[in-house]
């Protein structure tokens, strides 16, 4: 059966040739060949920028294990861009946001990001979601000198200005978050036995690193990790119970927070639960709890999330008088009514606002380097409750958060905002300045 005959081999080679030619014929090559214009004229100043549009791209988990909840982020960002486009755009240019599904699989992330940069000529990669997924493409994005802005992950790895000069984090990084959460638990649960439950990758490890800077080792009775591809976590929960942990701090994604809570219920184990921001969105959690427990009773999910301690670096929907929440509600009603206004939607809207902020600062006819320089020069605090860390030597984003507790499906803030840095000894201080209000137009001023 094997075709070792020359004619067949030749046919095979011809086959590849034919396929490649077809592929080549389908290719759309468009690169901006802009003329240098005067300061008032909009030009095609960089790949992905024309006189009328700015095209940016992203990789997002629209299907697969990470999709529940996270699949709302990109549509939410797009809703904000539509709002900006309808109100004058960025110096008159409209934003085109092309986000492709990578199923949270790094192999697919690589393919779609190559497509976005090499074929679609996007100006920047915006808010690529996930630690393992984005790690697979960050070196490539930087080698092409494409701005890699506001990665949707709190990994410290995005703060590497020397090796990844074009990459920037955005959300509160997990080390800072661990420190802030850890100090609060240490102060409010003095002498109690503490257990850790965390995802076994940079996300969970960074979080535990931050916690360990604040919580004495002697107080931690058990440290259990999980692998996101294995949903059987009963052994870990049993170990936490056996060690007598009275407070369990969890650095987990929403699905595993829900599993943790349900497994604890099954083992009749009821410690105080504290969960990192990324795994604690009350609406997402309530939905997952109801789904996993196959319990359709109204309020079932909320009854289980009540009392969970967590932190937040964006204003909470509970604060109905906050100008940012009012702005998000307005845009949500107009462009995104198919989703609930939950933590993921807030996130998508807020990160999109920051991008528009950076683009305005980058100038009227920006090159790719102009955007990177603009962020390196620092961005004023806006959507977050704490300022950004951005500078030429620091590519971390928001530097602080408040603590809160979940009540009736909402995050109720209970403390002022704390800020800190990512070093073991860096002090955690209370932020006294209030968050600036949202502009009335809903669009950052140039």
């Amino acid at each position, binding site marked *: *059966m*094997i*075709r*070792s005959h*020359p004619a*067949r*081999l*030749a*046919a*095979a*080679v*011809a*086959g*590849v*040739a034919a*396929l*490649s*030619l077809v*592929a*080549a014929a*389908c*290719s759309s*090559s468009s690169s901006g060949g802009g003329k240098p214009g005067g300061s008032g004229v909009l030009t095609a100043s960089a790949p992905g920028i024309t006189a009328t549009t700015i095209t940016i791209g992203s990789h997002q988990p*629209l*299907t697969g294990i990470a*999709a529940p909840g996270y*699949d709302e982020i*990109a*549509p939410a960002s*797009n809703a904000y861009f539509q709002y900006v486009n309808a109100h004058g755009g960025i110096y008159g240019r409209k934003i085109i946001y*092309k*986000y*492709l*599904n990578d199923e*949270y*699989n*790094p*192999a697919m992330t*690589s*393919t*779609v990001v*190559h*497509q976005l940069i*090499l*074929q679609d000529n996007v100006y920047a990669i915006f808010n690529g979601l996930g*630690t*393992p997924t984005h*790690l*697979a*493409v960050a*070196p*490539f994005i930087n*080698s092409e000198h494409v701005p890699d802005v506001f990665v949707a992950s709190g990994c410290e790895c995005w703060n590497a200005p020397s090796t990844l000069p074009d990459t920037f984090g955005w959300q509160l990084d997990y080390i800072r978050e661990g420190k802030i959460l850890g100090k609060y638990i240490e102060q409010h649960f003095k002498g109690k036995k503490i257990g850790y439950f965390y995802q*076994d*990758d*940079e996300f969970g490890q960074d979080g535990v690193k931050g916690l360990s800077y604040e919580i004495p080792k002697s107080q931690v009775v058990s440290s259990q990790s999980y*692998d*996101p*591809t294995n949903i059987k976590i009963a052994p870990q929960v049993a170990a936490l119970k056996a060690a007598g942990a009275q407070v369990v701090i969890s650095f987990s994604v929403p699905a595993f927070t829900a599993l943790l809570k349900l497994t604890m219920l099954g083992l009749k184990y009821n410690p105080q639960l504290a969960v990192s921001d990324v795994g604690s969105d009350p609406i997402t959690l309530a939905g997952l709890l109801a789904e996993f427990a196959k319990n359709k009773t109204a309020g079932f999910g909320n009854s289980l999330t009540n009392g969970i301690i967590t932190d937040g670096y964006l204003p909470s929907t509970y604060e109905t008088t906050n100008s940012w929440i009012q702005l998000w509600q307005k845009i949500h009603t107009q462009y995104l009514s198919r989703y609930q206004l939950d933590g993921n939607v807030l996130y998508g809207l807020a990160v999109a606002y920051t991008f528009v902020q950076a683009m305005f600062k980058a100038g009227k006819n920006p090159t790719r380097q102009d955007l990177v320089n603009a962020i390196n020069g620092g961005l004023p605090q806006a959507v977050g409750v704490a300022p950004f860390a951005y500078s030429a030597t620091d590519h971390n984003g928001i530097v602080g958060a408040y603590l809160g507790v979940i009540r009736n499906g909402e995050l109720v803030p209970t403390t002022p905002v704390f800020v800190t840095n990512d070093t073991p000894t860096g002090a955690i201080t209370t932020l006294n300045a209030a968050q600036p209000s949202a502009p009335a137009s809903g669009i950052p001023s140039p």
Partner: protein
Amino acid sequence: MASDVSEQIEVPAAQRRLAWLSRSTLARHVLLAAGGAVVLYLISVGLDPYRDYLMAQVAAMVVAVAGLTVLIGLSGQISIGNGAFMAVGGYTGALIFMHLHWPLGLILVVAAVVAAAVGAVFGLAAARLRGPYLAGATLMFAVALPFLANQFSGVLGGDQGLGFFITSPAFLGVNFSLQRWQAWVNCGVGLVVFVLLANLTASKVGRSWRAIRDDEIAAALAGLNVAGYKILAFIVSAACAGLGGVLLAIYDGTVSPSLFTFGLSIQLLTAAVLGGLGSLAGAIWGAALLVIVPIYLQDVAVSHGFASQATSAAIPTLAYGVVLIVVMLAFPRGIQGGLSRLVKKKGSL
């Protein structure tokens, strides 16, 4: 052919040369591969970087699928776990790249050898199993192996994997497209593997495999070392998979457990069956179909605004399933099987 030559004296010489060419399988295959290299080079320089990147991707899959198609189509053993051998190759390559900084050529060879060694161990067990039991054993291997990365996350990087980002060599210049370099490396390795496999299958080894596949008892009675040849087939297929794994890591820039899921093993099997089992040309068809069709479908879906919502993001996957079913219905013996039947029909008219 000799009749084209008018001068009497030159005929025997030309004939001698042609006869030598048709006698020497190796020379014929090397010549064809050289021709293929020229064609692939011309294509690669004509393509934009993204198509070069896809070319590298297809070539990596071709190498892995070629090994599998030889194993299944020739030796008659089934493996639904070749993705695991790809992982062995990929991780070996990444580890050497990170810690020892060896040149790429050496990394490729060592990765293939390590994967072959693992294949040999597995082949020892496989030689005692057949049919569904063998399939089950290989399946277990594919499912279990990626978990090793989590068990030894200190060395293997856990879920996040290891970086494997090669750059194009300095002599090509600073602005040389990295994707073109990746395409050259992957296609080059693919051609070498094809020459080796084509020779092997045309040799005594290939004939023995076919004999064993068709009737094991008869082959044993004829004096063939059945177990030895079966293990050899596993080694060859694992070495190809290991090489494919490194090539995959090269264009992807990393190795991680999610790169070598059980789904990858199924994809390899799908490509081998779709292309035509036992056919090297079929491996090219199968791999190309597997890489290009899903991307094309996602493109279509995106341009029609389908892929922007979670509910419709599954449409490309759905359409891909339909394409696979249609191909299988139209070409029950794989694409290459169907094509050669078409060619034969035309020839007989």
